[in-house]
């Protein structure tokens, strides 16, 4: 029962009875237990030592625990023999069964059990019915939706206790009954939970359940009237000691209770106003509970005790994350964000009044604002002033100066709002400051931090509009001190960081990402924080209209230079050591330290006494050095002292990395701005930057693209490899591209690097080093690590496999399993991809349909581009940019059966099952009678890859040409020609032919071989229906005939073979059309992705794909490894079944209950659910 402790109190109650019956009343030895109507397999964890089976009409993330079996099936027709189980339970199922079939269902349960049957369900007592109505209506009011299960209860009507018990009496089934879910608990606790859910308070909901289950159940929850009734049919000799229900009271009493319940619910609903924290000791809920405790009704007093018990338990162990963060209106408007303004004060008494007055004058709703002042040990009377004049401010006195960052964090921790706004105490805010900040805050799109504009106190000069940084971590504020008009402020601009003096940030993000680094004490903690946010995948943006006015250096000018320098230098260094990735840090750290030393020298004017350090110079061991010079050394020393801890912090940041350094470097703005303007230092910096070649690493690095091929590149390349390779070649003029190929060796083909991947890990490593990864087909299934990468995943969907594979597997019994797997692979691809390409507009339509059913066409995707070309675009097949070469004769005059003046009809590729080479052979038999020197040459019959099953079509083609007596004389089958040599065959042919069957696949197909024909200027005879035959027809590049029409096919060949002039004209047109179809123009949509991958990465963060709509569909189609293993096992078993078909058939024919037989047959038990399918296959 422990495993259920954290579940809903409702679920816990439901299962507690069967648990007690099993453990207290039945023998200890393992037994067989069936749970009917549970898709999750809850009992697997409840009874780990027993053999358990869960059955439902669907599965929902079922348990695969050892000894447990999830099954799909109907409760009216349980697939088990009589008495197959020792114990059967069913929870909250009866009420979902049509009322006229309920006894039928119970009878089936009784049939299959040889022991007790425990049936738990709500029954149709007026008080239960009212309880359900009250809860459902409260859900609608607070959460905007009803509870579907309760809707269905209302539709189906709750079971009638009398009817069921009368039936049991009639059929002489003994039973006992008792109840739980005391309605006086059930309704109020559901109300509380709904309220907390609506307020985004989910953590507390679970804890309420836990406390309820631990403290109230079972004693207090078994009282009458109860929501749920447990019927134990054929009860064991001794039942656990459970209270039997009180006799039904009179109608008047029932009516009174219904009224009381209604009153309770309505008053509680009122007390639970949207902003109510139910745990508060003086809130309206507390009042309500107190009133119940003082009530005349014993039930109400008991309820008050129960609530108090649970609440006290919760209050004793408060959890930090449970704060009531987002207060939503009951409607579905934009969330009204609560904001806490946090100020740090240290002896700033003269600043506080203007600052706090400007906060009091904010136009942001007061009920959504809290103001917190963290006082760092002021001794100037600040605290007294606050207490006297600003009672609405929450003051957190620290007693001493903790530093800026710890104080701010203290304030953020103490706040209870969704957002925190930080403000310096020497500022005043424009009345719309907060509302403008909140307006720009957009956590759904990763904008979790908003920078306000800071102006000088008089509003004439710039303080902060843009935060920039140089490569060694020195932050700067663009235009600082300049007149406003001279500085360009762009609303909404992404900024590396927001000034810590005026910003808004998600409180949750602030606290979970580490916030301002407390070790900074002061200066640059905001730079470090902003940078870290970008590293972790968030964004910081500028809100131009969120204005504060700042007394420049109100507090900090009171520190001497050497103290400030130490902090600047140490913090800059600390910040780069935290935030750069490994590669970039290695490049930058040495230059940063060199320049830090140079600054010590420059600022400390140390170069004046150099002579003393030359050998033979002044021997005096001591020298007076300015503290500002030593501040640099202290800075480094500080860092070294805390290095262990710093490295830990760095690792945390790097582990959370979501963006590459390259993407963030763009935000630095001024990577090489010198922090000192002394000529000496500026020159030194230039030398260091040049000497270490830093400029290159800060330039916009060209993005790297990796095209993954599942097959080898080079000679005898297969279609998918050719496509990957040609795309890589065409893209290589824009960005650096490599092709990943299976195998261990790296190499180069046509100037494109090929990187070998012997295993999955290597491929993931290669891919993670690339910005964009192009994958095809089953790649993701073979290498699931690819889906987790930060790289942009482009999925090439040039081939609608589903159809091909149905055709391929069509007549095998495992087809259904294979297709299920295909659907699952495709759906996985659709979920994982950031961008998709396909080969034609028609294919795009098809894939859009799939994407749409998968929920991928969501509002984020649509908002980015309503044409959805940023989701999926067309990259057809292109032609090679050189004309086909003909190095040496390969066919005419070379092949023993092809004379130099023969006319060759070329079939330019494999004979897949969806093609129709048989029609071509039939037609060619007609042709060859009239044109005896015509030859039909099949370029490839066998496949070069052993992992594709040999197709039945290849056998049929050979057989048929032998029957016609044309085999190897007029109809010749070539071996699969190497990629390069293919051209020679194309050049020697006179016409080309392509024929496909009339299948669903045809319309979506892209017959790339027809492109080869165009490239070689070959007139084409082809069947109609696909996009390229449309092109042939439109441009008059050959003759198009309907599929399956042998006469027309023969006529078309005869017409072309007999008319050289027409062939020549078509050939010329082919070449013209071909000249417009280059790979280089085909890949245009990919170029944009290759150049701006961050666009797609941003979109990925915003999309909801695969989460909302298709979560469960995903499960249905087994998007998980164990499910895949099961599918494979299924397939093996099907093969096994096929092999043993005769025995099976015999079993089935002679027995009434085939399932029973299978169940008893060792080795076959697991396949019970597959039997039917196997039989269907056998009978077909």
């Amino acid at each position, binding site marked *: 029962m422990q495993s259920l402790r954290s579940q809903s109190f409702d679920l816990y109650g439901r299962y507690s009875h069967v648990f007690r019956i099993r453990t207290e009343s039945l023998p200890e030895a393992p037994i067989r237990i069936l749970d009917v109507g549970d898709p999750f397999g809850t009992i697997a964890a409840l009874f780990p030592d027993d053999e358990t089976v869960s059955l439902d*009409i*669907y*599965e929902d993330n079922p348990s695969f625990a050892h000894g447990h079996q999830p099954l799909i099936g109907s409760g009216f027709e349980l697939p088990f023999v009589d008495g197959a189980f020792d114990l059967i339970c069913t929870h909250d199922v009866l009420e979902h069964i049509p009322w006229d079939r309920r006894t039928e269902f119970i009878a089936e349960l009784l049939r299959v059990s040889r022991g007790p049957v425990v049936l738990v369900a709500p029954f149709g007592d007026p008080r239960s019915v009212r309880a359900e*109505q009250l809860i*459902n*209506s409260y859900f*609608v009011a607070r959460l*905007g*939706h*009803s509870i*579907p299960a309760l*809707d269905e209860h209302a539709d189906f009507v709750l079971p009638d206790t009398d009817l069921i018990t009368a039936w049991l009496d009639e059929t002489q089934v003994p039973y006992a009954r008792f109840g739980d879910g005391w309605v006086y608990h059930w309704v109020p606790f559901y109300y509380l939970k709904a309220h907390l859910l609506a307020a985004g308070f989910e953590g507390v909901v679970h804890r309420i359940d836990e406390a309820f289950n631990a403290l109230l159940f079972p004693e207090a929850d078994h009282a009458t009237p109860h929501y749920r009734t447990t019927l134990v049919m054929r009860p064991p000799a001794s039942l656990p000691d459970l209270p039997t229900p009180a006799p039904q009271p009179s109608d008047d009493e029932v009516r009174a209770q219904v009224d009381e319940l209604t009153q309770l619910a309505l008053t509680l609903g009122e007390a639970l106003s949207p902003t109510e924290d139910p745990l508060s000791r003086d809130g309206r809920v507390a009042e309500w509970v107190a009133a119940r405790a003082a009530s005349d009704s014993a039930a109400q007093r008991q309820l008050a005790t129960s609530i108090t018990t649970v609440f006290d338990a919760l209050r004793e162990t408060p959890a930090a994350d449970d704060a009531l963060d987002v207060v939503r209106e009951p409607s*579905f408007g934009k969330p009204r964000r609560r904001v806490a303004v946090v100020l740090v004060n240290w002896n700033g008494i003269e600043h506080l009044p203007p600052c706090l007055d400007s906060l009091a004058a904010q136009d942001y709703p007061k009920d959504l604002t809290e103001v917190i002042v963290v006082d760092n040990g002021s001794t100037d009377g600040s605290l007294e002033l606050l207490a006297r004049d600003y009672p609405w401010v929450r003051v957190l006195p620290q007693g001493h100066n903790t530093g800026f960052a710890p104080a701010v964090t203290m304030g953020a921790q103490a706040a209870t709002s969704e957002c925190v706004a930080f403000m310096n105490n020497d500022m005043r805010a424009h009345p719309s400051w907060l509302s403008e900040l909140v307006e720009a805050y957009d956590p*759904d799109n990763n904008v979790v931090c908003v920078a306000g504009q800071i102006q000088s106190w008089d509003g004439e000069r710039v303080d902060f509009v843009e935060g920039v940084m140089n490569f060694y971590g020195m932050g700067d504020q663009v235009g600082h001190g300049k007149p406003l008009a001279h500085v360009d402020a762009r609303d909404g601009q992404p900024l590396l960081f927001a000034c810590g003096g005026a910003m808004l940030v998600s409180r949750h993000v602030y606290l979970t990402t580490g916030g301002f680094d407390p070790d900074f004490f002061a200066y640059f903690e905001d730079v470090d924080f902003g940078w870290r946010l970008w590293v972790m995948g968030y964004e910081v943006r500028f809100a131009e209209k969120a204005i504060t006015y700042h007394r420049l250096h109100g507090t900090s000018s009171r520190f001497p230079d050497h103290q400030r320098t130490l902090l600047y230098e140490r913090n800059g260094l600390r910040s780069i050591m935290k935030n750069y990735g490994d590669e970039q840090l290695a490049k930058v750290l040495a230059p940063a330290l060199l320049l830090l030393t140079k600054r010590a020298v420059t600022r400390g004017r140390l170069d004046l006494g150099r002579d003393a350090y030359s050998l033979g110079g002044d021997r005096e061991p001591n020298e007076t050095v300015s503290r500002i010079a030593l501040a640099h050394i202290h800075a480094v020393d500080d860092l070294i002292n805390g290095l262990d801890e710093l490295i830990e912090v760095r690792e945390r940041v790097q582990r959370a990395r979501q963006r590459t350094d390259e993407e963030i470097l763009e935000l630095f703005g001024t990577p090489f701005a010198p922090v000192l303007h002394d000529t000496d230092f500026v020159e030194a910096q230039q030398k260091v930057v040049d000497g270490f070649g830093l400029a290159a690493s800060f330039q916009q690095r060209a993005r790297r693209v990796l095209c993954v091929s599942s097959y080898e590149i080079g000679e005898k390349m297969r279609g998918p490899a050719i496509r990957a390779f040609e795309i890589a070649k065409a893209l290589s003029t824009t960005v650096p591209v490599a092709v990943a190929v299976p195998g261990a060796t790296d190499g180069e083909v046509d100037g494109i690097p090929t990187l070998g991947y012997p295993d999955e890990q290597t491929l993931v490593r290669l891919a993670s080093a690339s910005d964009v990864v192009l994958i095809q087909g089953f790649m993701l299934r073979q290498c699931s690590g690819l889906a987790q990468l930060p790289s942009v995943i482009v999925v090439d969907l040039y081939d609608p496999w589903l*159809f091909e594979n*149905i*055709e391929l*597997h*069509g007549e095998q019994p495992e*087809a*259904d399993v294979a*297709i*299920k797997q295909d*659907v699952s692979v495709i*759906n996985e691809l*659709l979920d994982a991809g950031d961008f998709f390409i396909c080969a034609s507009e*028609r*294919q795009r*339509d*098809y*894939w*859009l*349909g*799939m994407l*749409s*059913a998968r929920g991928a*066409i*969501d*509002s984020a995707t*649509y908002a980015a581009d*309503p*044409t*959805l070309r940023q989701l999926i675009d067309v990259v057809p097949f292109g032609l090679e940019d050189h004309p086909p070469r003909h190095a040496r004769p390969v066919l005419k005059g070379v092949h023993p059966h092809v004379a130099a003046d023969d006319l060759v009809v070329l079939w330019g590729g494999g004979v897949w099952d969806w093609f129709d080479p048989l029609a071509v052979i039939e037609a060619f038999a007609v042709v060859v009678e009239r044109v005896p020197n015509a030859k039909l040459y099949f370029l490839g019959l066998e496949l070069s890859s052993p992992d594709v099953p040999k197709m039945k079509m290849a056998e049929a083609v050979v057989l048929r040409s032998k029957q016609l007596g044309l085999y190897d004389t007029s109809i010749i089958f070539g071996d699969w020609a190497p990629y390069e040599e293919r051209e020679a065959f194309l050049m020697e042919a006179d016409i080309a032919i392509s024929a496909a*069957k*009339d*299948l*669903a696949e045809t*319309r*979506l197909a892209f017959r790339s071989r027809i492109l080869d024909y165009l490239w070689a200027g070959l007139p084409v005879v082809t069947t109609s229906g696909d996009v390229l035959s449309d092109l042939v027809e439109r441009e008059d590049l050959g003759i198009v005939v309907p599929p399956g029409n042998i006469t027309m096919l023969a006529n078309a060949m005869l017409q072309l073979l007999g008319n050289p002039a027409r062939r020549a004209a078509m050939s010329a047109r082919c070449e013209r059309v071909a000249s417009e179809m280059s790979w280089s123009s085909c890949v245009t949509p990919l170029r944009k992705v290759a150049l701006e991958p961050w666009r797609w990465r941003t979109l990925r963060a915003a999309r*909801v794909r695969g989460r*909302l*709509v298709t979560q*469960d*569909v995903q499960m*249905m*189609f087994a998007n998980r490894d164990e499910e895949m293993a099961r599918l494979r096992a299924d397939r093996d078993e099907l093969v096994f079944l096929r092999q043993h078909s005769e025995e099976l058939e015999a079993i089935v024919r002679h027995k009434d209950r085939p399932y029973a037989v299978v169940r008893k047959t060792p080795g076959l038990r697991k396949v019970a*659910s597959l039997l*039917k*399918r196997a039989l*269907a296959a056998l009978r077909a």
Partner: protein
Amino acid sequence: MAGPAIRAWKMATALSARGHDVTLFTTGNCDPLPAPFTVRRGWTDELKQAEAWCDVIVFQGFVIDGQPWLAHTDKTMVVDLYDPFHLEQLELSRETSEHDVRVEVVASTVAVLNEQIARGDFFLCASEKQRDFWLGALGALGRINPLTYDADPSLRSLIDVVPFGVDDEPASQNRHEIRGVVDGIGSDDEILLWGGGVYNWFDPLTLIRAVDALKERRPALRLYFLGMKHPNPEVPQMRMATEAMALSDGLGLTGTHVFFNHDWVPYEQRADWLLDADIGVSTHLDHVETAFSFRTRVLDYLWAGLPIVCTAGDAMGELVTDHGLGAAVPADDVAALARALGELLADKAARADAAAAVRKIAPEFAWSRALAPLVAFCDAPRRAPDLLDRETAGRLAAVGRTAARQRRGPLHVVTSLRRHVRNGRGGEVLRMALRRLR
């Protein structure tokens, strides 16, 4: 009658002409015309009776959403997918809703479709392009499987094309409604007709700008917007309609070159308006919705023999280009649109050719022909083979249940209520909801 009602009416007509016993059932308002079939209006109880009576159910849209029990019927179910309304939601929800709400609305609309795709025995759509799209959806939800494929490898027996049709009888005019009748439009003026409503995904603005660009050269040019008033009074006027009127006012065209009809056009008499025009126009923005929708108003132009100028990129644009019915121009291109209109207006012969081409192709779109796949199916109705196979059916039922759960997400109540209000059933649904809450 709006599009869906017309379509249903024509289906009922064709099926009853074939000798089938047909009931046309509506949950909306209904002001019945004389019909050769039974017309019933009602709600759950009446629909349950009708369901029990029939052999085949044909429906489109949100029906299952309002009547969830219908998904569990054993009757043969034909689902008409001619309107990819989830794509419409992407655009519609754009201006009205907050982010979370949009996500919900779009997702639950997809779920509504997914549920019917998991359950339908036979599907209809309006064009080959749509069919490609729906094949994708059918594939993703597991409906393309060995059972459906082996039954018919072309999958035409799973999903086929029933375009919107044109009336079999040619359009004939009883009287003028625009030409020489509307104040400001003379008998010899050159009339462009916008033959329907102005919704957000349309682009009347480019058209009005093109008229503005042409008006000097062609002073007799008149653009007439037929449908500023939706047949259903509860459908609010959309932003684009307001913008179109504002633009026309701003350019000083309203009442001189651009005219908006705010009156009601009875469906049966629409020929009186159509036949007053010289050219039918339809322009839209380049959105995924426009790519897949089927512009039914263009069929009215076909019926009336009007040369057509429309936006390229969808099934209609392709038809116009391929058969020389007028001109299809790129979206959002005032110059190209003005050029196409100018050329067609200046060249009488070209206009006559286009009109002839239109008249030639119109019979191919006759309702009787368009509906052939549905009629053939109803002659020999059958359940889909994968829904008869116990195991596949179980899996598909689970997909459907999942979709049903998602469709009933938090916003279900709100959106369905809004939809019912639009259909004039708000009161009843509200009362029902209250009954349930009491």
